[in-house]
């Protein structure tokens, strides 16, 4: 092969010419936020010189405050799983508002097939079904939960792609519908006492394990597979994608299906972590998932954004939440700050986009 870095007939694909990735900016922002919290901890008089990230208790086995790092990631991991799917939907130029209630509905449905027959020798007080649904292998609730998510996603996608309902409206309808399902499923009662195997799914740091694993898988899928390429192409120029022979409608249904399956999985993990399923679970999750993607540099017009960006966006939200607790500021300030940061992220991003062209 010719030395292509020198170009063939004036052509090059020199790797060094690739642009500064958007993700590095978010990483930079993340570092700045951490430094700000660290500085407040070191210098604000009421903090008594505590460190945000570092282990100041002179435990020689670690440099970082691992407990805090774990909490930062753990508290965004479940919403992060949803955000992985929401990212794909937004890249096609759509939106998914139904994920929060879908988390609750899936939690209820999956949990009711994961219950144990006996608790401490007594019949399960929260048993929803008869003995036939008790002590089932863990695969049963997981498959039922994911299948339910897939159905919701296919319905979303079908309305959006084939009936041309705007994604905002279609998924807003599904938002209410799923919350309704969650309430109706057990008549508003919590469903509790899962099998040990089901409780393991979301125990300890498992939500983080799932989040990281799924993030890696979907980053690879979005970058290196036909599915990923077509997802970007549809968001970038739907007409061009159609003209190029991509089955745009079918692809959209698949994207919404995958997004809803990820939200359903988040519901399974959440109910497992909480060891109970309640109809009110997952409130605002859909909005936080969208916020993660937005902070991660996604464009709501479609075509631009990445899984890595969304993971970093999730980290930003996690650090802010943890940081505000650390500097002893009330939850209300957290919400205000998060709101400001989301808008600031978009303003900065737009500014950068304009200056690049």
């Amino acid at each position, binding site marked *: 092969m010719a030395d292509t870095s020198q170009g063939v007939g*004036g*052509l090059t694909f*020199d790797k060094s010419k690739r642009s500064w990735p958007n993700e590095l900016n978010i990483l930079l922002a993340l570092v700045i936020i951490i430094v700000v919290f660290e500085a407040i901890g070191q210098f604000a008089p009421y903090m008594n010189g505590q460190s945000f990230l570092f282990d100041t208790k002179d435990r020689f086995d670690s440099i970082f405050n691992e407990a805090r790092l774990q909490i930062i990631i753990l508290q965004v991991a479940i919403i992060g799983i949803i955000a992985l799917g929401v990212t794909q939907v937004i890249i096609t130029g759509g939106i998914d508002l139904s994920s929060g209630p879908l988390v609750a509905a899936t939690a209820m449905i999956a949990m009711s097939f994961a219950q144990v027959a006996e608790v401490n020798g007594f019949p399960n007080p929260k048993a929803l079904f008869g003995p036939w649904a008790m002590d089932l292998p863990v695969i049963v609730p997981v498959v039922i939960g994911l299948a339910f998510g897939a159905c919701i996603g296919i319905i979303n996608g079908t309305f959006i792609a084939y009936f041309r309902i705007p994604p905002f409206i279609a998924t807003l309808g599904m938002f209410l519908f799923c919350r309704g399902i969650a309430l109706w499923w057990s008549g508003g009662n919590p469903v509790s006492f899962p099998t040990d195997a089901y409780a393991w799914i979301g125990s300890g740091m498992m939500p983080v394990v799932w989040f990281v694993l799924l993030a890696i898988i979907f980053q690879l899928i979005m970058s290196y597979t036909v599915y990923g390429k077509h997802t970007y*192409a549809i968001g970038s120029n739907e007409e061009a994608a159609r003209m190029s022979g991509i089955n745009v409608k079918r692809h959209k249904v698949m994207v919404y299906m995958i997004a809803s399956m990820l939200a359903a999985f988040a519901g399974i993990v959440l109910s497992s972590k909480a060891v109970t399923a309640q109809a009110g679970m997952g409130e605002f999750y859909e909005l936080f998932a969208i916020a993660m993607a937005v902070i991660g540099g996604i464009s709501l017009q479609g075509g631009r954004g990445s899984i890595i960006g969304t993971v970093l966006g999730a980290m930003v939200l996690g650090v802010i939440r943890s940081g505000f607790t650390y500097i002893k500021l009330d939850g209300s300030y957290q919400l205000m700050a998060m709101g400001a940061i989301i808008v600031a992220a978009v303003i900065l991003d737009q500014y950068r986009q304009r200056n690049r062209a």
Partner: protein
Amino acid sequence: MSNEIVLETRGLTKHYGGVQALNDANFVLRKGEHVAIMGDNGAGKSTFVRQITGVEQRTSGDVIFDGQPVNFTGPIDAREAGIETVFQTLALADHLDVPDNLFLGREKTKLDWLGPFRLLDYKSMRQDTLDALERTGVKIPNIRNTIERMSGGQRQCVAIARTASFASKLTIMDEPTAALGVQETAQVENIIRTLKEQGEPLILVSHNMRQVMDLVDRIIVFRRGRIVANLRKEETDGQDIVAYITGAKTGAEYEGAA
């Protein structure tokens, strides 16, 4: 020039409700021939192209391509049969780079058993892109750049290189230089000359008289949905063509048509 017919239409007609956008169009394109389609706005040029490329379904008439009567159900059908079209609105994905766009919808892949998650063969697609650009004489500074960072001319070149990079039997360009500057237009025209040298047949829809006289062998004039003239370049000139376009003249064989 070979006399083998690449594309023929017989009585091609398209009505939009009561509007007769295209009426009884009889057209022949031979191998290696470059033909221009001219006419005023709304004369039926783009309608004609849309019927051939399967973007729309004709009301009546026949299209014979490569010796076979064809009924394309969509542009993909037409492309698979070997008709590559550069549309007026560029069908490019702005956020993707040059190889991605060239191979959009027909990616080279590995591990095909993975279905929709089969892997993209980036290396091979990049090499093919470089080959295709070299063959068509298109110069783009960096093929890894996304389309949104390119000039109008570069975008048009990518769109044209896409049609030229696949073994097509017929290339159709719908006003490829309408939105371009002088230099960019020259680059596109050079690509068209390269196609001519390689014996690739071409249908060029254009308003640009100089361009048409420079590039093509034959000129078809549309007026009010009908073909009103079929002129060899050597036997006509700009004024003559304008007379046909405006309706001052009608070709002898088309008398009574419009």
